[in-house]
């Protein structure tokens, strides 16, 4: 039972870390970034490069974040900016972008599965059993990341500005907020977070050009049910991620893998606001 609970909260943590970047982009820009999986992959390869250069494995995190930020900045300028008024087209264009990113990575690194050195190894004893240390670290990472993001949003001028743009863009602009700049920064940060998440999950996974795709759909569904709130996202990750773990454990992992998508789809039909308060 203790293990099941640990499985649930660590799974929720991983989902939270993966979906956070997508959420802030959706929150401020009102578009779904289908290249999110691509940025996740970029993060994975940033970690790979770090390993290949024999740097400290923890260095993968800043490297990935930086790569995501820079690439996100370019993408915002070139692809996303003209599409703010056409949200469905933005989905398509970012999906096209993810195809391009996957192919570029394939051309540069090959189609093969690669391995990244994990910054920590092994398991620690817990509740009379052993548990993966890295998964526990992911719990901590999710809490810290959530706290930092909420801290920035609630406690800084930047966060206040971003929240103001989310709530009422025109009013914000009339108060002197350069909403174009806010969008630019948000997309960059969202992409940076996606890449960071990619680097964070690679010690548990392998790195290959398509590593982002399976995460994209779950992250997407989680964001759909969370609206624009990080707290809602946390709740959605716990509930739907918990359902995934429970269904995988007590029924079959194949059903479990579909559970987030199916439950979210049904939830949205019954309660369009999802986990966000109506």
């Amino acid at each position, binding site marked *: 039972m203790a293990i099941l609970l640990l499985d649930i909260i660590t799974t929720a943590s991983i989902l939270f870390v993966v979906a956070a970047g997508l959420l802030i982009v959706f929150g401020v820009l009102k578009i779904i970034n289908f290249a999110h999986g691509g940025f996740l992959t970029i993060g994975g390869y940033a970690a790979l490069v770090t390993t290949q250069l024999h740097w400290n494995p923890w260095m993968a995190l800043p490297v990935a974040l930086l790569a995501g930020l820079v690439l996100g900045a370019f993408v915002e300028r070139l692809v996303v900016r003209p599409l703010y008024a056409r949200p469905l087209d933005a989905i398509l264009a970012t999906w096209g972008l993810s195809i391009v990113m996957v192919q570029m990575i394939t051309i540069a690194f090959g189609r093969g599965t690669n391995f990244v050195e994990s910054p920590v190894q092994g398991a620690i004893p817990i509740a009379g059993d052993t548990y993966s240390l890295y998964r526990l670290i992911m719990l901590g990472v999710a809490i810290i990341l959530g706290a930092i993001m909420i801290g920035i949003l609630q406690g800084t*001028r930047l966060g*206040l*500005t971003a*929240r*103001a743009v989310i*709530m*009422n863009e*025109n*009013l*914000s*602009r*009339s*108060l*002197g*907020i*350069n*909403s*174009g700049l806010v969008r630019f920064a948000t997309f960059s940060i969202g992409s940076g977070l996606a890449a960071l998440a990619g680097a964070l999950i690679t010690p548990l996974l392998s790195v290959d050009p398509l590593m982002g795709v399976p995460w994209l759909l779950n992250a997407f569904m989680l964001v759909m049910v969370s609206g624009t709130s990080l707290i809602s996202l946390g709740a959605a990750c716990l509930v739907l991620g918990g359902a995934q773990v429970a269904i995988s454990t007590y029924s079959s992992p194949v059903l479990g893998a579909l559970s987030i998508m199916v439950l979210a789809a049904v939830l949205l039909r019954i309660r369009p606001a999802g986990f966000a308060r109506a």
Partner: protein
Amino acid sequence: MSEALAVETLTSGYGEAMVLRDVTLRVMAGEVLTVLGKNGMGKTTLLKTIMGFLPVRRGQISIFSQSTVGQPPHHLAGRAVAYSPQDQAIFQELTVEENLQLGLPRVTRLAPELKRVAAIFPFLAERRRQLAGTLSGGEQKMLIMARALIARPKLMLVDEITEGLQPSIILRLANVLRQEKSANGTAILLIEQNVSFALSVADRYAVLSRGEVVDQGDAHQPGADTSIAEHLSV
């Protein structure tokens, strides 16, 4: 007296529909101009065009003798212009304090400025941590006014601030605006439907009907209200 706002032969609108036609207006520093008119006559469109939310089709807009045509809305705040829109003028989900903070430039500290506006509207200090959406209608209007004043603007654009308010609060707002004008020399463009309030604050008036200025004059001149009433009832 310098010219705070000059609108010359301005034409603008939404899409292909022109709402404003050849509108010319001027507001001097330390002067209140009120623009009166019924709904759908182009008053709000005028402010939105001045702010840069709508493109200028023809004509010229200058603020403190510099053209602002083609500039994005956020540039105007940097020129000490405070805009209080009619609809959705506050962030309901933000606190009173955060709403005020957003009225200030990035570098300015809130505390002393808050103290200053709280002297005018004391409830602001008491309810600073309350969500703005939970304030009463009148308090929300006062918050809008406070947010405009907190940045020490040189030009205020105020859109139907009295709408739906009790007479006592309207009176209070009139006092605040008069005080601001005379104490700080602020230029104010006041969009109104409430003629008596408008005339009690304004130095000059203009009446907008179907996108054109149909009457203007000195607000203190006797008979101004009758002239306005005539044009309003067209």
